[in-house]
């Protein structure tokens, strides 16, 4: 008995850790999407908000990026799937020695770093455009076009791998049989090989789209002056992150879940339909009893349920208003800050400094010091003259004797992290 629980405990614990490792970050990310804190985090919990979704919906750059990612994804599918299928068919028909040589060639783009593919695509087509004397408006300089080409190079190889594993189980005499029955080669392809490959085409399409959507290192070069979903996200990370990133994650996770549930219910329904004729009819009473359950798992019903759930959450979320709570939090912070100020600098409280962080709350989300006031009493003029600069720019901490003067004279560096800020000699 104890032994039994003992053997059950360790695998159970292992599973728990495994799933925590797998899903922990996702869960945390989802939660942060609903916290009103300026930085994606769970603690301290401020207010439940759906505002980040609203912010996301208003983010034109991101929306434009998603739009071009979709166009690129569709373009990549349209090119990579036929190319990959053709390569797989070719490999299945040549002799063994030629096959291994061709296989190495076809697979090479996967092994080449994405950065190299991106750069070489850019340079190659640029050269060709230059050689043809085309203007910079020509499609050979177009980011979408180049990105599709660049991504197809390796995504076609991915899809070829998917097709290969399926085509290896294809019996080539089926094609011969079709030809023998009077089918033209095209008919034999469409009526025999394609239906057999259909499941692989489905999975390769999904794979190609996801690989295209999430690709960064090739795209960042080939997109030229444009942007895609990933490049926008990357620049967001670089220039200051806010929880609308988490909102993106929530939407992606949600879409994945919905797609997975729909696919699974469709697959089960199909498997049930394909049961041999004898077992399809509900014969036993148990089967009759199961009938309503079956109806509940019908894909149409599942789809309707999902639509209700998703639609409902969007509707409820859009009606939620957290502004009162957020104002309250803001007020609390201000009070807290005031308190700290007074504690640390009871002698000379600078009147302007208290308002500075409030005037520029979004300026530096990475600076936790925001919330805990400044470590040193600062001369009043500096923050007042350059509020966007970040009142607590490290320059203030520079061990310079005439600190106030240079800080004030500086022509407002754009970022609090600008290296010049840190330079000790000014």
């Amino acid at each position, binding site marked *: 008995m104890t032994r039994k629980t003992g053997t059950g405990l360790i695998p159970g614990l292992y599973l728990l850790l495994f799933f925590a490792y797998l899903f922990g970050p996702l869960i945390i990310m989802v939660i942060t999407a609903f916290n009103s804190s300026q930085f994606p985090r769970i603690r301290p919990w401020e207010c439940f908000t759906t505002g980040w979704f609203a912010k996301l919906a208003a983010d034109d750059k991101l929306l434009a990026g998603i739009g071009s990612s979709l166009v690129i994804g569709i373009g990549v599918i349209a090119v990579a799937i036929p190319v990959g299928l053709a390569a797989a068919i070719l490999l299945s028909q040549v002799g063994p020695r030629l096959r291994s040589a061709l296989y190495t060639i076809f697979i090479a783009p996967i092994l080449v770093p994405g950065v190299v593919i991106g750069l070489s695509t850019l340079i190659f087509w640029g050269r060709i455009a230059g050689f043809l004397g085309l203007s910079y408006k020509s499609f050979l300089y177009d980011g979408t076009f180049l990105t599709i080409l660049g991504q197809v190079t390796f995504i076609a190889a991915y899809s070829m791998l998917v097709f290969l594993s399926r085509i290896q189980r294809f*019996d080539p*005499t*089926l094609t*011969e*049989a*079709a*030809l*023998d*029955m*009077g*089918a*033209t*080669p095209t*008919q034999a392809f469409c*009526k*025999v090989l394609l*239906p*057999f490959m259909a499941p692989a085409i489905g999975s390769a399409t999904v794979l190609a789209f996801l690989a295209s959507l999430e690709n960064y290192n090739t795209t960042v070069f080939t997109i030229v002056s444009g942007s895609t979903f990933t490049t926008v996200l990357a620049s967001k990370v670089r220039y200051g992150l806010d929880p609308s990133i988490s909102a993106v994650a929530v939407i992606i996770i949600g879409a994945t879940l919905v797609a997975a549930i729909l696919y699974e219910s469709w697959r089960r329904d199909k498997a049930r339909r*394909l049961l*041999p*004729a004898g077992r399809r009819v509900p014969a036993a009473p148990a089967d009759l009893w199961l009938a309503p359950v079956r109806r509940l798992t019908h894909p149409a019903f599942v789809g309707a349920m999902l639509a209700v759930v998703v639609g409902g959450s969007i509707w409820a979320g859009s009606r939620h208003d957290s502004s009162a709570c957020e104002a309250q939090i803001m007020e609390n912070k201000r009070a807290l800050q005031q308190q700290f100020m007074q504690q640390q600098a009871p002698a000379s409280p600078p009147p302007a400094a208290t308002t500075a962080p409030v005037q520029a709350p979004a300026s530096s989300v990475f600076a936790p010091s925001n919330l805990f006031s400044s470590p040193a009493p600062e001369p009043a003029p500096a923050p007042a003259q350059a509020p966007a600069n970040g009142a607590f720019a490290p320059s203030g901490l520079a061990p310079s004797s005439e600190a106030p003067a240079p800080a004030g004279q500086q022509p407002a560096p754009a970022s609090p992290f600008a290296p010049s800020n840190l330079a000790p000699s000014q």
Partner: protein
Amino acid sequence: MTKEVSLDHVWVEFENFVAVEDANLTIAGGEFFSFLGPSGCGKTTLLRCISGFQEPTLGRIRIGNHDMKGVGPNRRPTALIFQNLALFPLRSVADNIAFPLEVRGVEKRERRRRADELLEMIALPGQGDKRIDELSGGQKQRVAIARALAVKPDILLLDEPLSALDLKLRQHMRTELRAIQKQVGLTFIYITHDQGEALTMSDRVAVMSRGKIQQVADSRTIYDRPATSFVASFVGENNAFAGTVLAKDGQGITIDAGLGVPLVAALRADSGVTPAVGEPCHLFIRPEALVPMTSGSPNSFEARLVKEEFEGHMRHLLLQAGEHQLRMSLVNNGLGGSVAGADGRLTVGFVPELAVALPLGLLASA
């Protein structure tokens, strides 16, 4: 309409390997013609030439007096039943059968009607909606035949279609195939390495060995008057003796087969090439041609009984004569008793008409 198929000195070579060597024969319209030979002798290759999947390296193939050179498999009046049947697993039984009609643009309702008709013929009525993997081996077989017959080809080519079936089903399918052939009156070209199958079903049989056609004849001739040592040793059981020709005249040929006595085989008008005097040769005596004889009779020799196997209607004896092992089969007369004396020795012999003398040649490996 039946059409004759003629192979005109057909050669097929794969990278220095000759798979078919100078095949030259004509198969009449409406005939049930079999190719018989051991594995790898080029039967499938020859069939693929006729159906258009393989171009002969040399020679010509004509179907109904049309040269088939450059005519693709989809434009030949042949239907091939593959060694593995090659039914389409993703299509229902009816859709399989109607496939040839589908690719010819026959309208859906008409296709279904024709498929039902054919299902009726192959005794599977109402099973059109089944999936292929719901069928038994013999049913698949019949579906493959129905599919091949859907567009009424002139020539049906069958590549060992029964090899995957168990013995009972095989025998059943043999009679059924023959019945279908009679019913539709097509030219059947049938491939097998099962000689029983070839001999019972065929109007004529071609025996092949290593890409070469050894003999083309009806079953009886193949069995009784083999043209080469290979045919004699491959078809049915045979005792082969290597020896030299001592004498030859109008009636017979006398051979020293190393048994201590000269043995005589009859010569007939239709005997083909026979070995000349002094030449090495093969003498073939079938187990059922050997009979116990009184000591000293012509064409008889001493042997020792090694083993006896009892098979109900037949008794098979394994004998040792000189350094030869030979088999002898006797019809069981129900009286029992040993054919050999107390010392296990006996005298066996044969009538000259039942022995065959042929030039020394390659034997089918035992």
